[in-house]
């Protein structure tokens, strides 16, 4: 359980500016610092869009009945970027949306921190809701990000979205 076996997956290889540029171009990036939601929203501004839907996934203080102190996200960045680009492309085919952007944060997070942000703009409201939910579900299913929760007693656990 030494830290160094995970060091390559706790931070991104790219600069923060590069990560935002990739998010703007491809619709998805990993980030290893706090997500600047305003910066992402600005890239989604479009006068033809009447609807903006966003989702923020925040670190909860509990998981079922267990109290969570903090958690760490680990990411396989190169695969995450390739897969994220494919997810956003697919979302634009499936739903009548204008643009979508998502960011997943990795590294050590505190309670209340935003771990994932998904924003979608469209002319009408339902496609924005549907696409935002689908993108989030697909990120949770397919983006290579792992999570380790730390509890009161300093025990930690690897979690999995599929049970």
């Amino acid at each position: 359980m030494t830290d160094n076996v995970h060091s390559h997956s706790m931070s991104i290889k790219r600069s923060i500016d590069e990560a935002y540029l990739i998010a703007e171009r491809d619709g998805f990036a990993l980030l290893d610092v706090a997500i600047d939601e305003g910066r992402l929203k600005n890239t989604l501004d479009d006068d033809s869009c009447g609807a903006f839907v966003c989702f923020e996934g925040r670190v909860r203080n509990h998981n079922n009945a267990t109290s969570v102190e903090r958690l760490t996200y680990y990411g396989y960045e190169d695969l995450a970027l390739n897969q994220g680009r494919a997810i956003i492309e697919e979302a634009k085919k499936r739903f009548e949306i204008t643009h979508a952007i998502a960011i997943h944060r990795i590294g050590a997070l505190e309670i209340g921190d935003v771990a994932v942000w998904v924003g979608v703009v469209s002319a009408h409201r339902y496609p924005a809701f549907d696409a935002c939910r689908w993108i989030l579900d697909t990120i949770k299913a397919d983006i290579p990000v792992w999570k380790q929760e730390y509890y009161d007693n300093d025990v930690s656990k690897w979690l999995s979205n599929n049970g």
Partner: protein
Amino acid sequence: MSNIDVAPNTEATMTINVLYFASLADEANCQEETVSVEQSTSLTELYEQLSQKHRFSRPQAELRVAVNDYFAKWTDQIYDGDSVVFITPVAGG
């Protein structure tokens, strides 16, 4: 050096770079290793060999696999110089 780092008695071997993440990195106690395997080694065989070496707790059925930073099928062929990652169940969001 374990027996899979050098392929036994074949002229043709290939070098595969394996990255580890999450619980596999814990179990392998490393984040990356370069292995030399027989030319025709499949992804399934590669996982089997590494699983024996590191005593991975997860059966292959619970994993996905990525080759050169894209998800791949377990039946996909791998080639000399490829990068392979075994993906335990993800937990993003």
